[in-house]
């Protein structure tokens, strides 16, 4: 069940000129969050901007004894609300509704099974909690993470410390492999085939490419969609995604309640 909390900003860590990591005191939401779920956030009290905005729960913050104390958001500044989140000051309150949406299905560590997480840019935000869950189940986990430039590869230590293998790419070649994250992923999947369960979050074109590639190699593939969302609760029908109908044709599913995590094979990519 979704909760609405006027969450206090605990900390705001700038990561670059466009990215920051915001810590919010929303313990009840954090405690209930499963990997891949999101919150709907409103950073102002006036009517401009009006609607909430969706954000993945990046990390769950915990006290020494493991109790959830809050959550973080990995925020990329692109418009009105993301600017307010970038500029947020500790002590300020931010309305936070969640946890929302269907979580990632977390695979078990079967024989030779492994998880490939594929993150493009701020899509990384969908993976920290998933990685923890996979590692807790002792699933061999690799993060394929692409960004525009080396300075925009964040939280690498978080994943390294948890034993996740990292494969990095940048579009400008300033760190990791030069090019797109799909290149090393393809080499990897070609080798492991159906042993790999693929999880992708990032730009639409990347997710479409990953979903197609996964199909080609007969891998299970889930994607976490990022559509414009008006409500996050299934009320507005803004966030729809076309999926294959049973008898051909298509249906529009609401990605806020039938997602954001969906099967890559189910979606009618452009």
């Amino acid at each position, binding site marked *: *069940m979704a909760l*609405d909390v006027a969450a206090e900003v605990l900390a705001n860590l700038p990561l670059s000129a466009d990215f920051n990591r915001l810590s919010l005191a929303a313990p009840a939401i954090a405690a209930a969050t499963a990997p891949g779920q999101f919150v709907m956030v409103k950073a102002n009290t006036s*009517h401009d901007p*009006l609607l909430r905005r969706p954000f993945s729960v990046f990390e769950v913050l915990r006290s020494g004894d493991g109790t959830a104390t809050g959550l973080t958001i990995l925020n990329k500044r692109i418009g009105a609300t993301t600017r307010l989140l970038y500029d947020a000051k500790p002590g300020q309150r931010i*309305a936070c509704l969640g946890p929302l949406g269907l979580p990632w299905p977390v695979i078990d560590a079967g024989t030779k099974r492994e998880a490939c997480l594929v993150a493009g840019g701020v899509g990384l935000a969908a993976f920290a909690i998933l990685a923890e869950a996979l590692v807790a189940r002792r699933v061999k986990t690799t993060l394929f993470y692409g960004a525009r430039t080396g300075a925009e590869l964040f939280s690498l230590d978080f994943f390294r410390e948890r034993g996740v293998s990292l494969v990095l790419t940048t579009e400008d070649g300033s760190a990791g492999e030069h090019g797109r994250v799909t290149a090393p992923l393809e080499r990897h999947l070609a080798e492991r085939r159906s042993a790999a369960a693929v999880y992708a979050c990032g730009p639409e074109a990347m997710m479409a490419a990953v979903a197609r590639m996964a199909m080609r190699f007969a891998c299970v593939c889930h994607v976490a969609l990022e559509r414009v969302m008006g409500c996050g*609760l299934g*009320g507005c029908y803004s966030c729809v995604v076309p999926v294959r109908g049973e008898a051909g044709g298509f249906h529009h599913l609401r990605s806020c309640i039938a997602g954001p995590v969906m099967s890559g094979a189910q979606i009618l990519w452009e």
Partner: protein
Amino acid sequence: MDLSVTIGSLHLKNPVIAASGCFGYGVEYAGVVDLSSLGGIVVKGLFLEEREGHPAPRIVETPAGMLNAIGLQGIGVRRFVDEKLPELRARNATVIVNVCGTTIDEYVEVSRILSDADGVAAIELNISCPNIKEGGIQFGCSLSGTFDVVSSVRKATRLPIFPKLTPNVTDVASFARAAEEGGADAVSLVNTFLAMVIDIETRRPKISNIVGGLSGPAIRPIAVRMVYECRQVVKIPILGMGGIVDARDALEFMIAGASAVQVGTANFVDPFIWPKLLDGMRDYLQRHSLARISDLIGTVDVESKHKEWISS
């Protein structure tokens, strides 16, 4: 304190109703609000058949408002009756169904199916959706079309019928009158304002349908004026809406002439808004020593001379 209101033969425990298209089929919200605590729920617009609606993007935010062109995606009236109505009934929701059609026959047929179903309290006739080409708004923008749809449905059902009027007309009150003459039990107003947002970088409209409907606080002052105008002209009750975000806004519509209010966009911003609206109304009645909210309806005072000056 008595928050109940009467809309024709329909008695509502309070005047706060979820607006169509902004509350799914109601069941989506069962986890965040006790559906029986609302005066009513207007479910998403339904045609006879299923519809997939427009491609995304379907909404874009605007200053203090939003534009939508969902295109009336819906499961069709029969699936609604089979799949959603039982749960709504079980939850004791007062269900009003927003009925769509591309022809008068379709309006009649959908209404008939709903009349035969168990648990529908009233029908809201959507003759005002700006986002679809066929039907709907064609009727809503013509006085005779409005009259024809209403009077045809009138013959087919005993359920209270509330035509929902478009604000995209020169004289909305004349449409309220046409609806009244057609046999409507009340009128709902307003639906959204036809509007457009262009992305200047790509020079393309920001939503796939090119134009869409504007809702939210931005439109509230226009909607209040329309409720006030209709109140002067028709005797049937008005369900007022457009940009209500708090109890004060709801009371403003009632003072302007609405017997009940609907809340749409604000539910997206705050799905926990419903008890806050009711608390705010109770608080107002108390402060003003009023026993019944119905005593407020249409009481706007346009006669008293203005106390011109503000005070420090």
